[in-house]
């Protein structure tokens, strides 16, 4: 009955090894590691249906980056693109390709204090799927350099 398209075996094995837990200073009575906790998920109170108010507050104060692997279907790039466009921010730089290692890394569109970036050929876990482009992208963002 294993659900499809998840691979957490290695993490489970590693983080439940007594020697690893000891190295990480995990108390003995802390329960077995699981990748996702069903009780937390089922009981979780989802108090926000949209992050719009938060972005309206944040974009006037600090820089932000929303990036999407463009072949993910859990949180797809189109939804985030619609979300960012709906904020009505001033466009600083029109949509263009960005490059990494001589290849197209994806597309970028920059608004005032918010960058919208896609990572071509990456799924939900962008740094895992496209490590080199993802490192370049986050470095550009952190150090405020061009993508």
């Amino acid at each position, binding site marked *: 009955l294993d659900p499809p398209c998840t691979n957490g*075996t290695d*993490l489970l094995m590693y983080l439940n090894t007594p020697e690893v837990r000891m*190295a990480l200073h995990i108390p003995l009575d802390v329960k077995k590691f699981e990748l996702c906790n*069903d009780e937390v998920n089922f009981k979780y109170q989802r108090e*926000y249906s949209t992050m719009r108010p938060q972005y309206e507050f944040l974009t006037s104060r600090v820089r932000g980056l929303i*990036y999407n692997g463009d072949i993910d*279907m859990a949180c797809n790039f189109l*939804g*985030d693109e619609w979300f960012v466009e709906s904020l009505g921010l001033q466009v600083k730089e029109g949509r263009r390709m960005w490059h990494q290692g001589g290849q197209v890394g994806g597309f970028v569109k920059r608004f005032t204090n918010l960058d919208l970036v896609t990572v071509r050929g990456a799924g939900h876990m962008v740094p*895992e799927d496209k490590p080199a482009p993802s490192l370049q992208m986050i470095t550009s963002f952190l150090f405020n350099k061009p993508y």
Partner: protein
Amino acid sequence: APAADEIKNLPGLSHDISFKHYSGYLNGVEGKHLHYWFTESSRDPVNDPVVLWMNGGPGCSSMEGLLAELGPYLINPDGKTLRKNKYAWNTMANVLFLEAPACVGLSYDDNDNCSTGDDETSLGNYLALQDFFKNKFPEYRNNSFFITGESYGGIYVPTLAVRVLKGQDQFPINLQGYAIGNGLSSYELNDDSIIFFAYYHGLFGDDLWTRLVEHCCTGGRPTRQTCNFSNSKWPMCSQVVQKASDIIYNEGLNMYNLYDNCPHTTAGKFSRHEADLSNILRQHDFHSTLMLRAKNKKPVQ
């Protein structure tokens, strides 16, 4: 830095590392202990920024971020050994991985109370952050600070960032920005857009698309403004959206990476797949059926 939290000998690590790393607990809300794993920058820890990373769910562990995505060492399939990640984010930043809320991963609650929500989670994360900068690593208090995350981190990150900015007078933190990867920003827009995404990637054909447009879009025009796939009360719309969502999420495609293989391995009694499905099409009556089908899914050929 807390000497007691320093990782001295990490099992499975067979290559030299040029940075210090720490694992321990940050205290947030009383009785709740959030596990952290902090990998200092291998370049210039004193001057490089501090980056907080959080995976989503809700309920999923940030250890996936560390050991499978952007950390300096990644787990090999044997579950015992680690390999070097030359594209690790700690090659240019000090990266803090936080498991939140309590009960996720190696984090715990003294009374085993795992019930929480968005506001309490962001408060707990904020208090944990204060513990990090005040008690555990005060030397990083003035470094540039960024909050980042993925998936349901789309909720965790902005809500925490707002708290940090609003609390600047009481507890100054040098927050410079935030970054979110494939984040949940709006349930409605995420649900509405996936139907367009699926059609334009050829996951279903014109027969189903025509019915979707007919029953869920006003004026027979399929646009972002005219279609309501996420919470239509029309039974016929709900029926065709269910058909579409079964194709997208329950027929063996890899919802995390459309063009990747779909591995079948044990991931515990509750999987990422289920956690992430819990965010999708929640307004429809068939949501629980969608979850149940995912839970009982047998491996496809």
